[in-house]
């Protein structure tokens, strides 16, 4: 790729990141003006709580996409995680958290290993995992007909309790996101993630453990998806089986809106956070409008998605010249 192209990409991502934050700010301001109900603290809290699980999933997705990969299995892992957490809750808080993480992490490991060692496309490997994990979820909940109820108060409060008026899980997610930022920007693993996405061959020749890095990000993605399901189960008080459809695409959209390149090599978690919140706020606004037909809602979401991404791209163009 020509040097200039790279220079443009750089300007691009830099701007796109600000872009996402900027758009978010604008939307929020408009909402403040337009909808009195939007202004309430409770509403803000609701948005954050609702955004918590998607945030975790998008966080993992960011790592994966920066390596130039993609993980379609997160939606299924999210449901599976929730079901397992509820199923394991009678055996104590630890079990309720450890079991889903173990299983989802293992599936992530499988994804990573297949991708790293067989050279199969991430898209297809994780697509298979999407099916497999969902099948597993149905298997443990006899075809989804049994919904396990959370039977552990400590675990339950993790989901329903709150601190300073903000849900516990929001705090938890905030901490994890911060950790994610540190890992991505301040550790050798983080650098390796960027390197693998920037140029796999070069990274290998420069002695980066490409395979281990790849496996690492998919394990991370699996774990975070599982954790997302877990905290969600804690909130809902049961392992709901009718969740997660299309969650992977929401996550991808959020990451891309956040300015991460699907081609890999560049991207930030700050951007992803903005992306997730943006989608959350939009959803909230569509509800504020009141009785909007569900189908129109979809049309609007789609149009808005296109709008944001196109806008960013053009802003990048301007920036380039």
């Amino acid at each position, binding site marked *: 790729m020509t040097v200039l192209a790279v220079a443009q990409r750089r300007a691009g991502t830099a701007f796109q990141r600000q872009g996402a934050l900027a758009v978010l700010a604008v939307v929020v301001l408009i909402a403040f003006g337009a909808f009195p109900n939007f202004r309430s603290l409770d509403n803000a809290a609701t948005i954050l709580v609702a955004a918590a699980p998607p945030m975790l999933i998008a966080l993992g997705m960011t790592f994966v996409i920066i390596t130039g990969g993609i993980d379609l299995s997160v939606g299924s892992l999210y449901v599976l995680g929730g079901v397992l957490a509820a199923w394991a809750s009678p055996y104590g808080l630890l079990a309720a958290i450890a079991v889903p993480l173990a299983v989802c992490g293992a599936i992530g490991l499988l994804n990573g290993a297949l991708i790293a060692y067989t050279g199969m*496309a991430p898209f*297809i490997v994780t697509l298979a995992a999407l*099916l497999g994990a969902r*099948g597993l979820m149905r298997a443990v909940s006899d*075809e989804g007909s049994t919904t396990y109820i959370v039977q552990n108060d400590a675990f339950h409060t993790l989901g329903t309790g709150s601190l300073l008026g903000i849900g516990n899980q929001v705090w938890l997610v905030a901490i994890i996101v911060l950790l994610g930022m540190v890992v991505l920007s301040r550790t050798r693993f983080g650098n390796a993630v960027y390197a693998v996405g920037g140029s796999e061959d070069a990274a290998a020749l420069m002695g980066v453990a490409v395979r281990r890095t790849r496996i690492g990000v998919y394990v991370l993605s699996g774990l975070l998806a599982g954790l997302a399901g877990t905290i969600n189960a804690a909130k809902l008080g049961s392992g709901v089986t009718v969740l997660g459809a299309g969650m992977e695409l929401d996550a991808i*959209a959020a990451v891309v809106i956040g300015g991460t390149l699907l081609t890999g090599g560049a991207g930030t978690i700050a951007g992803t956070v903005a992306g997730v919140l943006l989608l959350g706020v939009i959803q909230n606004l569509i509800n504020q409008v009141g009785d909007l037909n569900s*189908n129109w809602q979809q049309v609007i*979401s*789609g149009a808005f998605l296109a709008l944001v991404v196109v806008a960013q791209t053009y802003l990048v163009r301007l920036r380039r010249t």
Partner: protein
Amino acid sequence: MTTLALTTPRRADWLPRYGVYIAIAALVVYNAAFTPYFLTVSNLRIQLIQVAPIIIVALGMALVIGTEGIDLSVGAVMALAAALIPLYLGYGVIAAVIVSLLAGVAVGLINGALVAKVGLQPIVATLALFVGGRGLAVVISDGQLKDIRNADLIYLGSGDLLGIPVLVWTAALAILVVAFTVRRTVFGRRLLAIGGNRPAAELAGLPVQRVLITVYVLCAVLAAIAGLLSVGRIQSSDASSIGLLIELSAITAVVVGGTPLTGGRVRVLGTVAGAVLMQLVIATMIKNNLPPSTTEMVQAAIILVAVYAARERKTR
């Protein structure tokens, strides 16, 4: 540089090329042994009818993937086509068909423009219509499932021509056209070149944008065809459910068929085989009355095995 004759086939080279067909054969053998009434014409007929729309969509998807792209909006296009049919059926089946195909063209133009002109990543560009398209379709059909009684349209989806379903004829025709386009036409070669190395193709003076837009239009039109045929098949237009999740089936078919997602290569027959394989898997599960959990896990396993067999080996 001493040259070993290329004619001597490489080691383990047949596997990637014929893996899918072997898998199909294996599955057929299994069913012949364990599934009642499997080796019958009626069964062949049903499987072909059910797989035909997927094949038609997958062919378009294969072309898009050949350009290192992907199209998530095919399901939405099917829904749009389906939603428009009943609105214009009053003017006769031709009109209705034309309108729904035009819808395909429109979506294709949007996708193509977003990818080729704006320069969006295909997956994002088509995500927008994936999200909004179906919603729009349901709005158009104001949420109502509409029964279709127009004989001509029903003939397209459920009728026979020389003892073979029109649906199957159409799919066969689509296969021929696409295969021919890829192998013999200027457009086909350019498509592969763009998928292989877009900047190079640009510098070589290829009309990259035009080719890309055409590809997305083709894909969407094929999806629209699948959509209207499905309407004729289920003899009702249900925008909310028609073609749901077909994008994943199509992509699976293409990749299982040995077309790399990295572009630059399109395997038409492989794609068809991929679709047939997945159809056989599902049929086997249903006929043997297995629960969804098993079905999904088996599908996952088969996808992995097939793609593993078909993958590109790196010399090291």
